[in-house]
């Protein structure tokens, strides 16, 4: 008996030793090198979240942020595949990393048994996230999307993407009308300018701005698809109601002419200034920030700086509301419409995983298992709360079972200096994260992201906005547009990589950049001729582009439904 006890004791001792050894090995402190494909700020040494990460996972980070041109930087880093950052975020050019074979296939580590959290996270969208390698045909997933894998119903507090924007004061001046068509929109701007040619300082108002600079030319070339009732597919119009997803470029179609004709009329009325076609992005932001631009077509994120400037100056009446304008029945003749097309406003799309954006693990990383295990653990409730809301009592509080922040606490979260001490922003932004509604525990039904929580959206909203919304009977600015449409099986077509037809695609864009401004400024007798020249010039490259996009869309659809 004593012998047995001794043996058992020895075994137990050995076991403890082994366990502690194993644990020690697992917790051997490491420093991961991290590259972020966008500019950012180094966290301070005393950052409280990174300290917690170090305590639990034994992991420290050494961040490098983009300084200079992204493609150049990636090109330089890819020279030596043996010396890559461990966590590699390629920003908007992550495809380059994948194409160059710089990232490990995460499916070697992520599966339903070993990483149930990560698997549950990607499962609803796995047909989009997991793709087939073009050469080997094996299933691959190089990057877990950093955004867009929300839980629960989609939150649309405001329009973050494309829309026709109008200053709140214009709607207020007209007695808070509902605006749904191009005609109503421009009529309102015209009437407003007729009565209020200048602002309080005597600066003349600009009716409508069209930004045409560089890659931001979507303000010029994208609106027609939305007027036709579709969310953002880039430069093609897809009929998602048909099984074969007919795809066409819209810019050279008769229904596009109606929009540019309208702009042409507004140009002649002086609502659009000729300077809009030559202004730089900085000038555009400066104009918007000064509050003299009454309306424009743009994407909300594209002029965030101007919005912030207006809010800082407390010019609430000069900030913008996103409207979902569509063609009116008599804007486009019935025979000019695509076959069987009905117009219904859908500016907001179903939420879309931010495919191939976020951290990948590089092939030169020594411990991919450990990073995956860390992400797996971090998807747990407590870590997600820590990343999103922070530390209870310090960064947020709970009142009657609701998560909430004071105005000061929320302002802190937007302050970069504060973030460097108190948020793991550089790491968390590019890591897998839970968004949307909390589905478990005592806060179920509340929001993962403080910025979406009712207490913060409405509680901290300025009085002008509260009053403005009350006139419409809305509770949020997202109510000005229809609720999200179901995401098409191919996702959003603008995400498709055009490398295979790059030169034709470049031609297609270039012709629009060069000719559309001229069409908008054309005199009455020139307009039709200029439009016909344009259609003539662009059709060859447009056809190549449309056919390519159709093929790719069909491929994506097949992949989505799991067909070979």
């Amino acid at each position, binding site marked *: 008996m004593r012998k047995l006890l001794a043996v058992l004791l020895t075994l137990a001792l050995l076991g403890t030793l082994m366990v502690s050894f194993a644990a020690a090995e697992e917790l051997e402190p490491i420093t991961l090198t991290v590259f972020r494909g966008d500019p950012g700020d180094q966290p301070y040494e005393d950052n409280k979240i990174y300290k917690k990460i170090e305590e639990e996972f034994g992991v420290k980070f050494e961040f490098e942020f983009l300084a200079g041109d992204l493609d150049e930087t990636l090109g330089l880093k890819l020279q030596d595949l043996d010396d890559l950052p461990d966590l590699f975020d390629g920003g908007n050019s992550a495809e380059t990393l994948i*194409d160059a074979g710089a990232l490990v296939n995460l499916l070697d580590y992520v599966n339903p048994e070993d990483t149930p959290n990560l698997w549950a996270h990607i499962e609803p969208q796995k047909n989009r996230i997991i793709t087939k390698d073009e050469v080997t045909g094996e299933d691959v997933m190089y990057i877990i999307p950093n955004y867009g894998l929300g839980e629960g119903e989609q939150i649309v507090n405001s329009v973050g993407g494309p829309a026709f924007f109008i200053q709140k004061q214009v709607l207020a001046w007209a007695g808070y009308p509902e605006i749904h068509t191009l005609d109503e929109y421009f009529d309102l701007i015209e009437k407003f300018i007729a009565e209020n040619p200048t602002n309080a300082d005597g600066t003349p108002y600009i009716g409508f701005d069209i930004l045409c600079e560089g890659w931001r030319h979507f303000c010029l070339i994208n609106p027609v698809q939305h007027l036709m009732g579709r969310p953002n597919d880039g430069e093609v119009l897809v009929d998602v109601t048909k099984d074969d997803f007919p795809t066409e470029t819209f810019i050279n179609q008769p229904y596009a002419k109606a929009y540019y004709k309208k702009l042409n009329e507004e140009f002649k009325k002086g609502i659009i*200034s000729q*300077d809009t*076609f030559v202004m730089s992005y900085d000038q555009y932001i400066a104009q918007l920030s000064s509050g003299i631009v009454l309306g424009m077509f743009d994407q909300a994120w594209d002029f965030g700086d101007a919005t912030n400037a207006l809010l800082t100056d407390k010019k609430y009446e000069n900030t913008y509301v996103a409207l979902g304008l569509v063609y009116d029945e008599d804007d486009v003749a019935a025979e000019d419409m695509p076959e069987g097309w009905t117009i219904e406003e859908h500016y907001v799309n179903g939420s879309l995983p931010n495919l191939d954006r976020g951290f990948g693990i590089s092939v030169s990383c020594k411990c991919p298992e450990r990073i995956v295990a860390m992400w797996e653990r971090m998807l747990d409730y407590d870590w997600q709360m820590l990343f999103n809301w922070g530390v209870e009592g310090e960064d947020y509080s709970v009142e009657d079972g609701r998560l909430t922040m004071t105005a000061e606490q929320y302002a802190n979260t937007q302050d970069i200096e504060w973030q460097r001490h108190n948020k793991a922003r550089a790491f968390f932004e590019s890591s897998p994260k839970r968004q949307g509604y909390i589905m478990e525990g005592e806060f179920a039904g509340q929001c993962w992201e403080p910025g979406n929580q009712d207490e913060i959206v409405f509680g901290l909203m300025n009085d002008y906005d509260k009053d403005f919304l009350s006139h419409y009977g809305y509770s949020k600015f997202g109510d000005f547009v229809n609720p999200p449409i179901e995401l098409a099986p191919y996702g959003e077509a603008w995400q498709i*990589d055009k490398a295979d037809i*790059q030169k034709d695609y*470049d031609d297609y864009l270039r012709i629009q950049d*060069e000719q559309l401004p001229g069409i908008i400024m054309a005199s009455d007798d020139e307009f039709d001729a200029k439009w016909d020249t344009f259609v003539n010039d662009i059709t060859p490259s447009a056809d190549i582009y449309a056919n390519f996009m159709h093929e790719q869309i069909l491929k994506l659809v097949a992949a989505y439904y799991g067909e070979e």
Partner: protein
Amino acid sequence: MTYDSRGTARYHSPKKKSFFQRLCSQWQLALMSVPIFLYVLLFNYAPMWGWINAFKDYGNRKLVARGITPFNGLDNFKWLFSRPDFFVAIRNTLAMSIINLVFGTVSAVLLAVLLNEVRQKMFKKTVQTVTYLPHFLSMVIVVAMAQNIFASNGPINDLLLGLGIVKQPVFWLGEGKHFWWLVGIINVWKEVGWGTIIYISAMTAIDPALYEAAAIDGAGRFQKILHVTLPGIKSTFVILLIMNIGHLMEAGFEIQYLLGNGLVANYSRTIDIFVLEYGTQNMDFGVATAAGIFKSVVAIILLVGANFISKRLGEETLV
């Protein structure tokens, strides 16, 4: 070896020194030029290896990223010359270069002559400093200023409208026909002071005795400029001209890229911008290198041509 008219018999000895003997006898000089030699070798000759890219297919970004770039003969050159807009780019490049060259040289010489005539030292120094300060401004800032000055409601249009010269604001930035001249004017504004420095230094080298002699002969101020100052800087002028002709294919990149827009694209697209839009931006280094080779070849022809003509006219030459 040059022939010296006063040369002695040993100078004409049949045993000409070999290259290496001469090198050894001038070893100090040779040693001093080694860093320059290495510099040129490393940064000017070694990169020429990259010309091989002009004969490779970089057309598909996906393949390029996997390191697949097969040789494709002269396809890149054929593609370039099949593009009407490449010829437009050549036209724009040459037009803006020539405008820049003429405006730049004339304005620099003129300002240098004027400054040379100024006797009040403070004034001269102030003007010199003020005119060459813009040289140090980034083109981004210069263009941003120009965009405001030439806007439809900018000061230039205000002035023209106020003076009644035009009835409608001139659309300076949006009409192709103005673009080349705008580039020329902006370049003059930015570079004129800088350009004068070399001419002013050439003028200080002119023997004052010449001016005195001219004055004794009854020459007035203008005649002194015409017959002493200008001939005095002629050799500098010619050397600079030849060198600038070698750079004719480089009309600049920044100013056109920043000031250009869709409306004036047919006048603002230089070869460099063409290369950016169709080559570098899409990682199509084949096309980009092909255009680069074309530029270099034309530049060499222009340089040698100008040098030859200058030699024929009995002027200074580079080689």
